[in-house]
């Protein structure tokens, strides 16, 4: 006799969001986490004694409002060290640009009036288009066919909204949908710093350069999120609040419980088998981990058709972002930049594209581009007094790096940092660099991809994670997907998990 209705594999934000949504609907849910803490990629780590930092993602911009409000994360301890975080486009000469408000609502620094005006126009246009796409994130992707459970009313509304852009805007929307960001930036702007930062934000976390086809779509996806914020205590506190919230709803979270396989009886998912041999039964099994791992390891090809194994194996999951943590014994000085901002080193479109080129051939960038956050500048308590911790996402590094390549890449990163923040090297107490390979090992990011499947036009909406399973349902009755590998993708969001739970409830209601 099963002790719960649903088992969720993985306690990342999506697993917890799905758990919360199902628990709110009265389901008895068990969440299984292989690690010692809940949170998946949303955790805070003490990477060296006395220095705490968000282990993977360090900024929040996609947290789904349905999750935040639906689970009342605030009352379960989610606080912010900063909201509406500004961005500094760093210049090696100290001639920085400061982008404030919601994605550069205002810009200060030495920017020409023409560029200022051009940026305003471009930004507004992108925001309008992003707003059209935003609602898609909060729904099950539609599918061609009758009786496939499409949310027709919602879709009709969204269609109208796109039509509502007006003729010129619609034409422009269609033009931009699959364009590359570099072309747009070259068309509209002159300032290299500004173009550089937009190009960087577009390709952050992707296996794309600004000149890669369809890259602009990722910028629209990003802009469809919320303003940047930093949770108090690091990203772990988001997961902690979610865990508390779902536990309050009656969800049981079991830690150190690694799922070995999904139990399948008479072609139905009937439970999971843990690494320790224990079998847990439930009628609904939800995998909130990587879809490739789910199908190929937990389910296994014996229970799947060859075509499906092919598609699961072919999900693009290339990740080239490195996570860098530096424990500093003093205040780093970025030539006058405000440390209470997001600091970006991406001096031009060309610089980002050049950084991307080597990784196509399995080599790392000689002049990496990066996003830096100094969490200790925003809140106390993370590090010893007077010290700081620097957290950076650095691109691009190949998945396979030997110790020599690692050391060489770290050297290149430090050389870049030294250019922008002279003397920073001398402040370092301890450093930690997590390559795509490390992230795969520690967090199950197959291929080093943070989104459990590249976010790219060919892997979005009904193509995510691949055709046939984009509506969270799998061919094995009772087994569902709810991870970042499903629509709408990664980031500390919970949207995929919430959507999946909604879908499960809807389809159960139909039976």
């Amino acid at each position, binding site marked *: 006799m099963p002790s719960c209705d649903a088992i969720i594999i993985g306690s990342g934000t999506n697993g917890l969001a799905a758990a919360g949504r199902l628990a709110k609907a009265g389901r008895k849910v068990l969440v299984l986490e292989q690690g010692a803490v809940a949170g998946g990629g949303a955790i805070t780590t003490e990477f060296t004694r006395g220095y705490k930092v968000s282990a993977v993602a360090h900024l929040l911009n996609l947290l789904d409002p349905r999750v935040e409000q639906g689970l009342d994360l605030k009352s379960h301890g989610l606080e912010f060290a900063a909201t509406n975080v500004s961005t500094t486009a760093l210049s090696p000469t100290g001639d920085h640009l400061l982008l404030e408000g919601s994605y550069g609502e205002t810009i200060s620094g030495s920017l020409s009036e023409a560029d200022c005006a051009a940026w305003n126009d471009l930004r507004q246009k992108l925001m309008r288009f992003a707003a059209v796409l935003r609602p898609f994130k909060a729904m099950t992707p539609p599918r061609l066919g009758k009786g496939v459970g499409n949310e027709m009313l919602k879709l009709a509304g969204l269609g109208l909204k796109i039509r509502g852009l007006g003729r010129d805007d619609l034409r422009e929307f269609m033009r931009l949908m699959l364009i590359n960001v570099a072309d747009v930036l070259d068309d509209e702007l002159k300032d290299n710093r500004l173009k550089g930062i937009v190009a960087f934000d577009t390709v952050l976390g992707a296996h794309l350069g600004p000149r890669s086809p369809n890259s602009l779509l990722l910028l629209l996806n990003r802009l469809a999120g919320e303003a940047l914020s930093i949770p108090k205590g690091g990203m772990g506190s988001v997961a902690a609040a979610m865990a508390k919230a779902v536990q309050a709803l009656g969800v049981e979270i079991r830690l150190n419980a690694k799922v070995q396989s999904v139990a399948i009886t008479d*072609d139905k998912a009937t439970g999971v088998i843990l690494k320790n041999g224990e079998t847990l039964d439930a009628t609904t099994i939800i995998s909130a981990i990587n879809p490739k791992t789910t199908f*190929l390891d937990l389910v*296994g*090809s*014996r*229970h*799947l*058709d*060859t*075509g*499906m*194994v*092919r598609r699961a*194996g072919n999900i693009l999951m290339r990740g080239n972002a490195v996570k860098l943590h530096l424990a500093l014994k003093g205040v780093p000085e970025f030539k006058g930049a405000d440390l209470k901002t997001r600091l970006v080193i991406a001096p031009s479109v060309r610089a980002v594209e050049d950084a991307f080129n080597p990784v196509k051939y399995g080599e790392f960038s000689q002049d990496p581009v990066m996003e830096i956050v100094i969490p200790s500048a925003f809140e106390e308590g993370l590090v010893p007094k007077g010290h700081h911790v620097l957290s950076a996402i650095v691109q691009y590094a190949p998945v396979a790096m030997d110790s020599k390549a690692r050391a060489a890449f770290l050297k290149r990163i430090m050389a870049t940092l030294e250019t922008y923040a002279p003397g920073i090297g001398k402040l370092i107490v301890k450093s930690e660099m997590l390559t795509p390979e490390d992230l795969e090992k520690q967090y199950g990011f197959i291929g080093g991809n943070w989104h459990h499947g590249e976010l790219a036009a060919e892997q979005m909406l009904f193509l995510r994670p691949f055709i046939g399973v984009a509506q969270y349902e799998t*061919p094995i009755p009772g087994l569902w997907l709810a991870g970042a590998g499903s629509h709408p993708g990664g980031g500390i969001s919970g949207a995929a998990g919430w959507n999946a739970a909604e879908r499960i409830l809807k389809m159960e209601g139909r039976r």
Partner: protein
Amino acid sequence: MNDPRLHFKKPLLTSPFHARTSALSKLNSWGPWGGYTTVLAYDDESMEYTAIRNQASVYDLSPMVKYRITGKDAAAYLDRLMIRNVAKLKVGHAHYTAWCDDAGKLLDDGTLFRRSATDFMLCCQERHLPWLLDSAAGFDVAVSEISEEIAALSLQGPCSYSVLKAGGFERVAALKPFQMADFKFCKSGTLTISRTGFTGDLGYELWTSPDRALELWDILFEAGALYGIRPIGTNALNMARIEAGFIIANMDFITAEHAVRGDRARSPLEMGLEWMIDFDKGHFNGRRALVEEKAKGTSKWALVGLDIEGNVSAEHSLIYHNKKHEVGHITAALWSPATKRNIALAMMQRPYHAERNGDLWVEIYASRELQYHKLMVKARVIPRPFINLARRKAVPPLNY
């Protein structure tokens, strides 16, 4: 010619038996099959057919696509691949089988030989290496194409056992249909003989290495001289296989990977292969789609046998219900010498294959000295195979 870039200079390969087949090919009538050039008719199609049913016939089977599947998980792998239960296939036996894509549409049919618990050979019409390799993910198996490593002959006809006996292979007497055994010949030659075939008659298939091909041919023709042994081409074989009710991929159905039009692929339920599906053996490719097709009754087509009035072969003809509504088409047809009937394999829209098959007409365009005469003749659904020869199954086989 070893430079692979020069492949276009010789678009069709020749079989290991080419030295013999080309010498006997009086009509010089050749056709491509699986990348090889093969004899369509040696000298007289009718006499070749007659040899299949009355004497002993030899057909060069070498172009048949062949795969070897070995490894600890070979049986499990094949059980996931095939619609038939491979676990039930005994060592030293072969069975007719078929396999599907995810949508439950046929990718091909073929014969699966089990040489040992972990060693299989699969023979089929089309090439499938990418599918077979991709299906191997998660299984401890090795899959390789061995088409060029094996020379094969099909010895068919009532006298085929007598020929083998005369050739020194009398041990084949013990073979039941779909059984096989290994033999030695000419000192170091090794030969596998299986009691299989594509004619519906008593017959055997002989498998050896290409370097011993000509020796094998010569043994058979020397031993068979008194039994009227005769090489046959594809045309004669096709006549016999229609009588036996056998289907051929891309003639009687389009394989799913070749189908361009969305509605052309066929499921095993539609091709009359339901008898071989084992829904209870665990998951296999296409199972979920087939379960649904069966449960919902969504099969659109049915392959049937037809007995057609008159004696004009109905190849490529359309079938009408009540002389008005088109309800199917002929995939293979001939005036059958063995049954003295005008028979055909037909792809029928359901329910005209069974419930509403009372008023079927075939529209035949009969060519009479460069003028087509349109015939509308009555057709009747009859069971396949059209022939059922006791000698095919007799153990030991009879001496003819």
